[in-house]
Every structure is written in C-alpha cells, then in structure tokens.
C-alpha cells in the first residue's frame, strides 16, 4: 500500500522547506521531496573543491523575514547571519569608491569624486529607507485580486489603498518613479558620479534581463532595498556556512516539527482525481498519497510538467507559457590559495569583508547588456564579488579563500554554440576582467567553477536558469505573479498549491512565499 501524508511539498529549496515547516507546525504530516542529493535548491553550500565550501548559486541574504527566523527558531537550528557591510567599486584608473558602516568614511570616499554626491548619498539613503518601509507592508501580505468583488478582496484592496495614501505625496511620486524609470535614470536624478550611479544601478539589473538604462529596472533596485535585517533596511547578510546554512537550519527546524525530508526523490507527476490532487508519483514509479500537494518549483514545471495542462484553464496555460523565466546571469566560484590583492587598495582590510563591485561606469554595464541582447555572454561583465571565507573563515582552510562572483550577463540562449562549448571561455572572460583589478588573482586560483544559466537549469531545475524563478518585471509581480487570478498560491486543481519564488513576493532568500503559501493552505483547511 502506498504511504500516506497530509501534505507533500515538491522541491527542497528554502521556500519548500519553510512551507513544510509551517505546515508541520500546524500538525500536518508533511513530506518534502527533493530531486538532488542535497536539500536547499539554489540555497546550497557544497564542497566543490576539497576543503573549500562554495555557496554555489545564491550567495547573500537580505530578504530573509525576521519573523520566520523567530517563529521557526532557526538560530537554535544553527542559523547565524553575519553582517556584510560594505561595497567597494574599484576603478580602472586605480581609484575606488568605498561605502561602509562608517558614514564619515563613506562621505570622504564619495567626496573624492563629488562632495555634492557625498551629501546626496545620505539623503538618498533616507529616501530609499522610506520606500523600503512603504513596500515592506506588501511583502507580508497575500496579493489581493483587483478584479474580484469578493468582500475579502475589496477589504484587502482598501487596506492597501489606505496604506499607500498614508505614505504622503512625495513618497508616492518617488514610488511611481521607481515603478516606471530605469535605475540609471532614477539614480542620475541624485548623483553626478558615474561609477557611483553604475554601482547603485547594478542592484536594478541583478538577475534580470534588463540593462541599467532599461525602464523598469528601478523596481528591481527597490526589490533589493526591501531587505531588512533587524529592522534595518538595505542590510545584507551572509549566512554562516554559506547560503546552505540557511537551508540546513530551516530543514532542521522542519524535521524538529515532524516533517520528513527525502532527497534523491524527483517527482515525475502530481496525481489528480476529479480535479483534486491526490498525491505524487516519483520518477522511479513510487506512488505517495497526500491530501495536499505543494509545488515550490517554477510555474513552467508546476503547471506544464507536473500536471497535464489539459486539466487547466487555457488562459492559465497561456499565461504560464508566456511567463518570462529567461536566465541572464552566471556564477563563477573560485578557490584561492591566498587573499586577493586589489590594485586600488592593496593588502588586508575591512573592504575584503564586503562586496566588491566591478561596475566602473553605466556605459560599461550597458555595453555588457548589449552583448547579451544578441546572444553572447558579456566580454567585460558586471561582477558582484564576495569573499565568504573573509566573513566565515570555516568556508576555506586557514589563509585560503573562496571567491563568489555573480556575473551578468550570460544569456540562457546563445546565438552561437552551446553552453557546454562556451562555458570555459565565459570563465576566462570573467577571470580576465577580474585580473584587471586584482593583479594577483591568476596566480592564486586553485579551482574554478563556472555556471551558466543552462547549468543552473540542469543542476537545480530552475527553468531557463532564472535565479528568481521568473523575471521581477512589473508585469510579473504582486497580483500578476505568476499569473493573473492565480497569485494567491492556489491553482485550479483543488489541494494543489504553489509556494516558490515565482509567487509573491518573489525571489531572494526570504522564505516569504513559502510562509504566505502555508498560511493560505491552512486557511483553506479550516474552511
């Protein structure tokens, strides 16, 4: 006889695990099924080279909801969030911009370029703080359906409207600008120093197929500001043990609450009967029954692969087929024999414990985007670097380091050749670019791991390798994420739910989709 559970969560990424933890906490007998040999999905740390632990895919944490940390007691389960407090932008001429926790030092550094900008930077930080505060409310709620006249939806819309009106005129205008402008245009209203605009605007393109001059990128900028740690917005963190440390803590909490977690268990199909989910079939044919099935995978897999699309309304199938999951970024992870030395600021220092941004000018990033628009990886890409071993020394043997390089752009679909043919050339382009700023780099590389969007798709299953399970464009957000009418974690199939990053509030290690979905599921159960 087939085993039976109250709920099955497909996918052991961080949102699937959060979802399972909350369902278990509510007393449901819950099973998580992960296709890989490790849990975590894109939130995973692996020892790719002996002694060196890589945060293979995702590499920083900013959006992890503090209430999830408290409610699931993740610290007791091993979670430690370490601060990542600075960003340095090295420039080809040997100068640099440093922004860190010491506001006077930040002021002095920007002043080298423009005192006007150094002053504006403080005001800009306040403005973005207000914006983050405004949007924070949205992060914690289920998106209401603006087309429904159900009293519950109307009430939710009314509350939302009231919230926005309470922001005040000036903030509403700024918000509309953020929704419509390009990140570079938005930032140029504030700053005249090109490398500063470039570095700040880079937050507006991370993970998306947009350039800093593309309208809509300003919203992505805001998405990256919504990160909140300890009630402090725009605070980035780094998990002990890499991002896998986050998944391990959530997994441990879920187990402690009674969830069963299985790896090497790829799901082939979600079983349905009379429009109701009844369980899953694994790739090896094993059948597992459950009254509830929750997919943490992206909508292409959730709606087009796991179930027969014929069971679904055609408007949903159409919307999901058009849902943009195009991957545009890659990852290069390096094991280093020694600490890297920046030519602009040689030697050890706090700057190595923060981010290093290769974003010398807006034109530089826009040119990198030009390459990608026509199906080539950027010859001189935008690179967001952190040295996890500088923050958590256990990531590498003493004195040695791991370097995580998030690289943009690397289009999923190449104009010529395949990623198997181009992968190493891409890795070389990244290292060559880095070596211009880090002269000792090529001498200290022990191992290089290169991941294209295609590799991301092949390894962890994200369709087309999009790190957010779908673009964070306005047309794919809030009540439109992943599809109009299906943004409240439910699907047309009873007992079949979605809880991944392709649902509101979207990508990043936040746990919010996983939790909000669990809350909706539990609400349905109480009916």
């Amino acid at each position, binding site marked *: 006889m087939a085993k039976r559970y109250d709920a099955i969560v497909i996918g052991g990424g961080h949102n699937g695990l959060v979802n399972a933890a909350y369902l278990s906490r509510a007393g449901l007998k819950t099973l998580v099924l992960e296709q890989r040999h490790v849990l975590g999905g894109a939130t995973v740390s692996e020892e790719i080279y002996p002694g060196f632990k890589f945060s293979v895919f995702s590499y920083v944490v900013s959006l992890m909801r*503090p*209430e999830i*940390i*408290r409610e699931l007691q993740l*610290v007791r389960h091993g979670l*430690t*969030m*370490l*601060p990542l*407090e600075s960003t340095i932008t090295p420039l080809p001429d040997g100068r640099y911009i440093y922004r*860190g*926790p*010491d506001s006077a*030092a930040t002021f002095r550094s920007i002043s080298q370029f423009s005192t006007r900008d150094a002053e504006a930077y403080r005001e800009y930080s306040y403005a973005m703080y207000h914006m983050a*505060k405004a949007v*924070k409310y949205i992060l914690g709620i289920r998106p209401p359906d603006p087309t429904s006249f159900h009293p519950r939806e109307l009430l939710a819309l009314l509350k939302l409207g009231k919230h926005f009106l*309470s922001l005040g005129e000036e903030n509403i205008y700024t918000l509309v600008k953020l929704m419509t402008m390009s990140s570079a245009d938005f930032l140029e209203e504030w700053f005249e120093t090109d490398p500063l605009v470039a570095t700040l605007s880079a937050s507006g393109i991370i993970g998306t197929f947009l350039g800093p001059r593309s309208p809509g990128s300003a919203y992505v900028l805001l998405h990256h500001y919504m990160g*909140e740690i*300890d*009630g402090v*917005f725009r605070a980035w963190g780094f998990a*002990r043990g890499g991002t896998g440390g986050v998944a391990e803590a959530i997994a441990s909490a879920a187990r402690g609450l009674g969830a069963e977690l299985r790896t090497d268990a790829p799901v082939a199909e979600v079983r349905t009967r009379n429009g109701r989910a009844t369980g899953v079939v694994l790739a090896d044919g094993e059948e597992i029954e459950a009254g509830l099935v929750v997919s943490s995978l992206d909508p292409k897999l959730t709606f087009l692969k796991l179930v027969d699309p014929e069971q679904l309304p055609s408007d949903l199938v159409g919307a999901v087929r058009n849902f943009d999951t195009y991957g545009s970024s890659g990852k290069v992870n390096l094991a280093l024999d020694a600490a890297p030395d920046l030519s602009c600021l040689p030697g050890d220092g*706090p700057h190595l*414990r923060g981010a290093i941004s290769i974003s010398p000018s807006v034109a530089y990033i826009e040119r990198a985007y030009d390459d990608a628009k026509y199906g080539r990886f950027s010859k001189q890409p935008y690179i967001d670097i952190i040295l996890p071993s*500088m*923050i*958590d*020394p*256990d990531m590498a*043997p*003493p*004195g*040695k380091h791991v370097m995580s390089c998030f690289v943009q752009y690397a289009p999923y679909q190449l104009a010529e050749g395949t990623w198997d043919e181009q992968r190493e050339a891409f890795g070389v382009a990244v290292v060559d670019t880095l070596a211009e700023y880090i002269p000792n780099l090529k001498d200290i590389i022990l191992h290089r791991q290169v991941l294209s969007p295609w590799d991301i798709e092949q390894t962890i299953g994200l369709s087309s390798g999009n790190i957010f399970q779908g673009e964070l464009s306005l047309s794919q957000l809030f009540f439109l994420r992943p599809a109009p009418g299906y943004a409240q974690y439910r699907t047309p199939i009873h007992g079949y739910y979605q809880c991944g990053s392709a649902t509101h509030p979207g990508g990043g290690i936040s746990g919010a989709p996983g939790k909000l979905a669990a809350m909706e599921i539990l609400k349905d159960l109480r009916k």
Partner: protein
Amino acid sequence: MPIPGPLHSRIAPLCTTQEWRDWSGYLCPATYQPSHEVEYFAVRNAAGLIDVSPLYKYELRGPDAGRLADRLLTRDVSKCRVGQVLYSPWCDEDGYVIDDGTLARLGSDHYRLTAADPSLRWLQDVGYGMDVEIEDVSTRLAALALQGPNSRAILESLFSNLSLGQLGYYRLLQTKFKDAPLTVTRTGYTGDLGYELWLPPEHAPALWDRLMDAGRGYGLLPVGLAALDMLRVEAGLLLIEVDYTSSNHAHIPAQKSTPYELGLGWTVAANKADFIGRHSLQALAQPAQQLVGLAVSWPDLEREFGKVGLPPQVAGRASRTPVPLYAGGRHVGQATSLMFSPILKTYIALATLDSQYAQPGSDVEIEITVEYVRGRAGAKVVKPPFYDPPHKKAVQRG
C-alpha cells in the same frame, strides 16, 4: 583618569575609533572598528581577542588556602580539584552578594581568585588567623580572553603540547610562554567556546602578537567592551553594578541581592562547612524577587512604533538603563540589561521580577519609549542563557 594597561602598545594602534572606556582605571577599547557588530560576530562565528587584564586577581597560597576560599565563597570549594575552576558569588554576613568571580585551583594549596572590585581587605579579614598567604596580583598578571568557536584551533596552533581538545569546561592547564608561567582556563564572559590566558604582563604583548598572527586564517579580531557586553547578556551572565548592586555599595537595603534573587541559588552549598552569610541565607532561600531573562514581543514593538509610522527602533548596543516592568498594571520589577540580539533577532533583557511572575513562560509588560512617549510591549519570561551553543561545553573524545 584611566591609564594604559599592559597591552596598550598593542591595542592602541588597533583602536581606530579612539572610543575608550574606563574599566577599573584602565583604558579599554569600547570598539576597535566603527562597527562593534563585526566584533560581536567574530566571537559568535570565528574568534575574538579581548584584553581582560583590568580584572582584580588574588593568589591564595598555604595550608589554609582552600579553607579561606571555602569560607569566602558560597560554592563548596572542597569539591574543587586541582585543575578545576569554579564560578561563585560571595556574600556578606547578611547573605547579600558582595561580588562574583572565578576561583582556579592551580595546586593543592594554591588558588587564584578573580573579582570585579578590589577585594584584598575583605580576603584578609575573612582569612584572619588562617595559615594562608594572600597576594594581590592584579597588576602582576595580565589576562587575555580568546573566545569563539575557532579559539581552540588558534590556541592549538600556538601550543601544540597542550591537549586542549580534552580540556573540559571550567578546567585549566598550566604551561610556559617564553619561560614565563602561563595558565590557560577554559572560561570566559561570552557564553561561547573560549579560553582565558593568564601570564606576567611583560610577556602579554608577545602573546597578543602570536595569537593575532595565528588567528589570521581563523577570522580572529580584537574585540572591545561594547561587543563583550552584548555577548555576556546573551550568555545570561550578570554584571555587577548593572544587574545587581554589591552589598558594599548599596545605598539602601532594598538595593542588595541574595544569590537566590540573582538566579544563583545553585551556587549556595548550604551543607558545606561554615561560610560567610550561611546562617542568613537559610532564611532567604525563597526570594521575593528573582533575576530572569525576558524576550520582548516583536509584533508588540512593531505595533507601538507603527503608531507613529516607525519600524521598531532598537539599541544597537546593550543598554544599561533600567526599565520598569509591569503585570496587571502594577510595577513588578525592572529590566537591567537590554539589547537586540543580532543572532537571535530578538529583543532580550536580563531583569529582576517579583517571584510570582518569574516562572518561565510568564507574561509581563516592559516599558518602551516611542518618540518621547512611554508605552508598553509584552515580554515573556525565559530562562537564561538566551544563546547556548553546544560547543561551549563540548569536549573531544580520545
């Protein structure tokens, strides 16, 4: 005016903030770098080095050394073996706590006591007539605290002869550093894996250098008192004149505390040989107030601050400003050390509460100030320590 201590030549150049505190008359960095949180996390995740030389230190030698310690402390010193360290408070005759510290047994007739306040006179008075030599070694002994999960690996790389893996919690080893005696105790004020290193001050700078050097690949950072204060609150460790008042310094009797009131009832060995305060303590074993931990409700803070449109504003450092606590509208105690725990994502406090509210799980209210206006937030009583990692006490087998 505070003066430089034995490690000043090393810590002064590292103290880039020039933010100094006065600890028993010595200059001590509050933070070395602009962000004390980096120092805090060094201890929680890697390792930190703290100059704790300003502690008062006393050596007790002679046939009656153990008897003196036993008469002084509430703990049963006769059970303290050579190589062991005890934490204990000590009381006045009325059973009120004067001070607290650690007692290390270095030899069969040789002990070392640490204290927060100068204590030579009291030790001499308690030891009157005993065959014991009491020596104030406060300035003749420097102390370095190496704390954090990587502290063992760093120390092992320096002293390969020591079997640190087998050294238990609150145990000690004695060795040499540059021919000078060095005591290594597995103790600290952080609630993490850690060691304290005791040696003559003239050798302390060289040891500091060696440790900083060895710690390079292990994330070792020098750590100041701002971070230390946060670490000790999470560890549930008390600070004199903050969480309690020494009976020597109390202006009124109500300011004094018994060990029972401080949550230190476990240290009172009522059945051991006579000790100072014993007779009084028998009648005080059911305290009217107790020291507890509090976890403040975050949703309540969001609600209260939300009324004026603010996210919760929490102090980045541990606050030592006492705050009243309420239950049923009545004042029932006060929080004495308050902080937002960066690792727990929780606003926590050490507090003294009327005993009827001191059970873990009890609900009380804490006063908060939102834009100059006083309000209240719910708080739950919890049993300290707030943070208690397994590696704090773990011993390697073999």
